[in-house]
Structures are given as C-alpha cells and as structure tokens.
C-alpha cells in the first residue's frame, strides 16, 4: 500500500515538474523544475530497487549537471530568456499532436500486453557491487566507450569555452571590433599626451624608473 502511495506521488510530481520545465517562461524556473523532476525520478528508481542509480541520479544529475546549468543561466542573465516572438499555431498544434501520438502509442502498446508481476529478486538486486560486477565484466566495452566519450566532451568544452572567437574567413568584417581600453587612454590624458599618440608606446611607470 505504501508502495502505491509513493508511486502515485512520485509520478504525479514527475509529470507536474516536467510540465513546469517545458512551460516556464523563466529558464531559471525550468532548471529548478528539472531538479524536482530528477529527484522524483530517483524516488521511482528506489521503488524499482535501483539503489545505486537513485544515488547517482541525485548526485550526478541534480547535483553536478543542474548546477552547471544554473551557472550558465546566471552567466547569460536576461539573454537566457525566451525570445519573445510568437510560435506559429501550426507548430504548436504539430508539437501537441506529435507528443500525444507518442504517449498514446506507448500506453496502448503497454496496456495491451499482459505483464506479470515480474521476477522475484533478492534484496541485493541493484546494489552498487552487483551493478559494478556486470559493468566491469560483461559491459566493460561500454564503460570504456563512455569514459572516452566523457574525455572527448571535456576537451570539447575546454576548446569551446577558452578560445576567443576568431574572425570568419569569408566575412572578416563580421568580427566584433576590439573594445577600447579606457584605462590606458585615461593614463595618456593624465600624462598630457596627444590623443593621436599610439597609446601602447607610452612608457610604463615601472619601466622609466629603472
């Protein structure tokens, strides 16, 4: 009985917060709804005896990935907001039809099958050591492929994040103009230099002393 109550509560929360992700105007609320969604999914994993995955879900997803999302949303500020153009009505309708079609299809397909109660498993099912046993023996190749993928993604993120935007080869004028450096110009003005004087040739204070 407790199982049923927890399942109904967790699934209702999961669906409601999924709707919150999709329908929120503010991206910050979307990310917070996704955290709620992930936690309620972790509850359902616990109901399915996937203890290790529930812990990993909360730590890796709700902990690490979503914090990164929130950092990026905070970094972008109001530029992260949704563009204010209206969605064409046909696109909205097509999206509703496509989503509903998938849902109805799967629900009908599942409901037409007679699933039994499932195999009885021991309490050990889903604990970290058993998952690790099959992960590191039978599915070792998948483990290695995942680690290589994570490495490639990390390298890609560093490349994307650290490189200054380079000018486009075909459109050099597309490159944004370098920002003026107010400190140096102010320094030049204070020292009585002419404005046409190239600022970067001015002697620095620590250079003319020695």
């Amino acid at each position, binding site marked *: 009985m407790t199982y049923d109550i927890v399942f109904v509560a967790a*699934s209702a929360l999961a669906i409601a917060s999924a709707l919150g992700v999709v329908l929120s105007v503010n991206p910050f609320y*979307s990310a917070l709804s996704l955290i709620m969604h992930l936690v309620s999914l972790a509850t359902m994993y616990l109901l399915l005896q996937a203890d290790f995955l529930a812990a990993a879900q909360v730590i890796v997803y709700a902990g*690490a*990935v979503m914090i*990164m999302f929130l950092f990026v949303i905070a970094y*972008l500020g109001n530029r992260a907001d949704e*563009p204010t153009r209206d969605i064409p009505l046909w696109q909205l309708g097509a999206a509703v039809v496509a989503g509903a079609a*998938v849902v109805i299809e799967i629900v009908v397909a599942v409901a037409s099958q007679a699933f039994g109660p*499932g195999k009885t498993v021991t309490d050990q099912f889903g604990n970290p050591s058993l998952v690790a046993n*099959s992960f590191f023996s039978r599915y070792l190749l998948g483990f290695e492929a995942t680690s290589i993928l994570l490495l490639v993604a990390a390298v890609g993120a560093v490349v994307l994040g650290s490189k200054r935007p380079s000018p486009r080869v075909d459109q050099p004028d597309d490159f944004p103009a370098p920002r003026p450096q107010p400190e140096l110009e102010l320094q030049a003005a204070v020292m009585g230099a002419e404005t046409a004087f190239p600022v970067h040739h001015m002697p620095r204070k620590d250079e003319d002393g020695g």
Partner: protein
Amino acid sequence: MHIGVEYFVSVSAIVFGIGMFGVFTRRSPLILLLSVELMLNSCNLTLIAFSRYWGDQSGQVFALIVMGIAASEVVVGLGLVVAVARRKADLDVDRLTALRH
C-alpha cells in the same frame, strides 16, 4: 492495485511526450537542452523498470551509460551556448543558422 512495469513505462512515455513537446515549441537553446534531458531521463526510467521486471542488472548498466551520455551532451551543449552568447548572437534556435551549409 498492483503497480507493475506498465505503470512505470506509461509515466515514462508521458514524460517523453512532454519533453518532445518542449523540443518542438521552445526557442531558447537552454530550454531545448533541458527538454532533451527530460527525454533521456524517461528512457532511463523505462530501462530501469524493465531491468527490475526481468530481474537483470543489464538495464541498470545501460541507464548508467545513458547518464554519461547525457552529461557529455550537456557539457558540449552549454559550451556551444556560451560560445554563441560570446559572439553576441541571438540565442534563438531559429536564427542560429550559420552552420547550416
């Protein structure tokens, strides 16, 4: 009532549909990434539900791999969003067409 695997799969289908709706209608690349996360997580729920149904750990291993893939996807996606934002371009997926050709 007995909560069998079909209930879990139905919830996962509903969440997948919601995520799909989000991918089709939203324009901000950040919300698009969040919607893709919804879809990936619903697939994880299906994998784990059937893993419990068959009494086999393999589904849980696959779910772990999906988590790794989702993390990589978020990292690269957010890197792209930040790179686009740095070039002062519009954060609108309908206007970000420079890579189309």
